[in-house]
């Protein structure tokens, strides 16, 4: 299934026509607090502030090269595979099956899978179902704030091709246009057994060194940003925030 997935990710953007930019019926004004301004500090110093600048990191993401020998890289991958920490961001209805997954019957903790409340501590972003454009914006920020190595799992048919919401004006259809997806789990919604199987497959990918989503994101950063900005009309955040 990994091969199919890679084929999709690599081939499709070239094959398909780029969607035309829709003419806007009304302009979206920049929010008041995001307009660049000059602030006078208590000591009289004047500071120029541009809220859309990230003052801590102007650099984009970089590709992480593997360790210098195979055996070390394998050790790293083994360690990564055995501690999948999910970011507790329930982006859609699939999140309701995450609760049973973490409780006595299915108990994903025994596989080293657990919730973390903040992106800084998590390395797995589970997009649990359809993404509205408004949530996509938050999901991108959350993903970029997570630290390497990091993985994305798309959950449910609606992340793959729109699913039930194929004709909705507010949900994206292909998650891998906007975020580098390492694995999809199908279903509407996937059962906990399917989730466990999916996480198991993800572990195998990581161990084999094939879950390179974060590097793909860094390599194709421009393409991802173009796609993201095409649907997020009011882009009011730094291009890369970590």
């Amino acid at each position: 299934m990994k091969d199919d997935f890679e084929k999709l990710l690599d081939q499709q953007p070239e094959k398909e026509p780029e969607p035309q930019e829709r003419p806007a019926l009304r302009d979206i004004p920049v929010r008041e607090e995001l307009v660049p301004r000059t602030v006078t500090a208590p000591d009289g110093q004047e500071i120029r502030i541009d809220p859309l600048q990230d003052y801590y990191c102007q650099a984009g993401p970089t590709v992480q090269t593997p360790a210098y020998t195979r055996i070390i890289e394998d050790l790293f991958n083994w360690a990564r595979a055995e501690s999948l920490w999910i970011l507790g961001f329930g982006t859609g209805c699939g999140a309701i099956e995450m609760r049973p997954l973490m409780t006595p019957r299915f108990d994903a903790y025994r596989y080293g899978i657990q919730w973390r409340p903040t992106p800084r501590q998590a390395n797995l972003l589970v997009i649990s179902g359809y993404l509205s454009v408004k949530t996509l914006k938050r999901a991108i920020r959350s993903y970029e704030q997570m630290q390497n190595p990091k993985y994305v799992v798309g959950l449910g048919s609606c992340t793959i091709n729109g699913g039930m919401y194929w004709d909705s004006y507010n949900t994206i259809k292909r998650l891998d246009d906007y975020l580098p997806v390492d694995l999809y789990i199908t279903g509407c919604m996937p059962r906990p057994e399917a989730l466990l199987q999916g996480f198991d497959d993800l572990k195998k990918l990581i161990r084999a060194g094939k879950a390179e989503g974060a590097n793909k994101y860094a390599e194709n950063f421009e393409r991802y940003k173009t796609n993201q900005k095409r649907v997020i009309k009011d882009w009011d955040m730094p291009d890369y925030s970590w």
Partner: protein
Amino acid sequence: MADAEFGKADRSQYPHRRPDGSLDIDLTSGKYLKLWQGPNHPGITGNMSVELTVCGDEVVEGKTHVGYLHRGFEKLMERRTFIQCFPIVCRICVPEPDFNEYCYAAAVEELAGLEIPEKAKWIRALILEMGRINSYLMYLGGQAGAFGQGVIGQWTTYARDLMLDRFEELTGARIYHMFILPGGVRDDLPEGFDERMEQTLQEVERTLDDVYDTMFRNAVFKKRAVGLGYVDPALVDEYGITGPVARGAGVARDVRKDQPYLVYDQLDFEPVTGRESDVYARADVRRRDLLMSVDLIRQILSKMPHKGEVMATLPNVLHWKIPRGETYIRGECSRGEYGYYLVTDGSGYPRRVNVRGPSYTHAMALLEKLIVNVNISDVAGLMVSLHTYPPEIER
């Protein structure tokens, strides 16, 4: 306010209001801080967010932001035939999807003039009560979790899984059942369902006994929940409050009793009410309501007719046109009044469907009122106690 009297004045009067009624908050004064709770935050009910303005650790203003889960159901249904709408309505509310199916089906039946078989009504009531138990179990775990008691969520999710097994046996699915469709229900009860249901109900009751001992009699839970989030009974009508939040304030309003639908007029029950109208009272109302649902399921299973059709004969659903009309159907879901407003125009497609979820008023106007002068750490507990669920606000 002068700094000397800061902390001594009546907190409910703080911050002051300007003559036009808006809050007198000067963000540049350095006294206040903007804080976003959500959408990516463990202390939030689903994918929504609250924009808090805090002074110290006290919330002085809160604004609810929704729309993160908007899929445009009401628009999508306008371009689907009546039978095609049925599989997507349940996606509006995840923890208790059956109310969408029931309200939609009942609205279509009323406008199309369809009579459903007697047995289908009983099975529908059974499904709705099972869904209510699931939703309440989920709530109890969330409410305890918001105050730091993680173990309650483990227990109640265990009990919920057992109930999901019964759903799976009956409908073939865990979450989205798609069982109640216009005209009746899809199937009859399976063989031996009653006994397995009875075992599940006993296990649910046993779990609730444990939950009562560890949660409702726990000093920490009491200390944090008692007195938090008081809802004045006078606000009930003004703010359109329904369900356990209203009943916790002593207003005995229950659609099952006020406007009996399905078979609720043949069942023996009284609306559960509380008095104190705080988080603790609402949690207790829901716990007792859950036990009442257990009792109602037993009544339904014993009074249900054993033989009979479960599905009326539908006209050819491909060319099913419903004459022009409009109606409103409501039911009492675990969070309050759930309703569907359906308008038809004589074609094969609905003209307009409007979903009225209880969270629409609870999470917006009411929460923004209650959240003022609450400690930041109590915001999660307060939100959970209103049992808000974002998809039914934005659909």
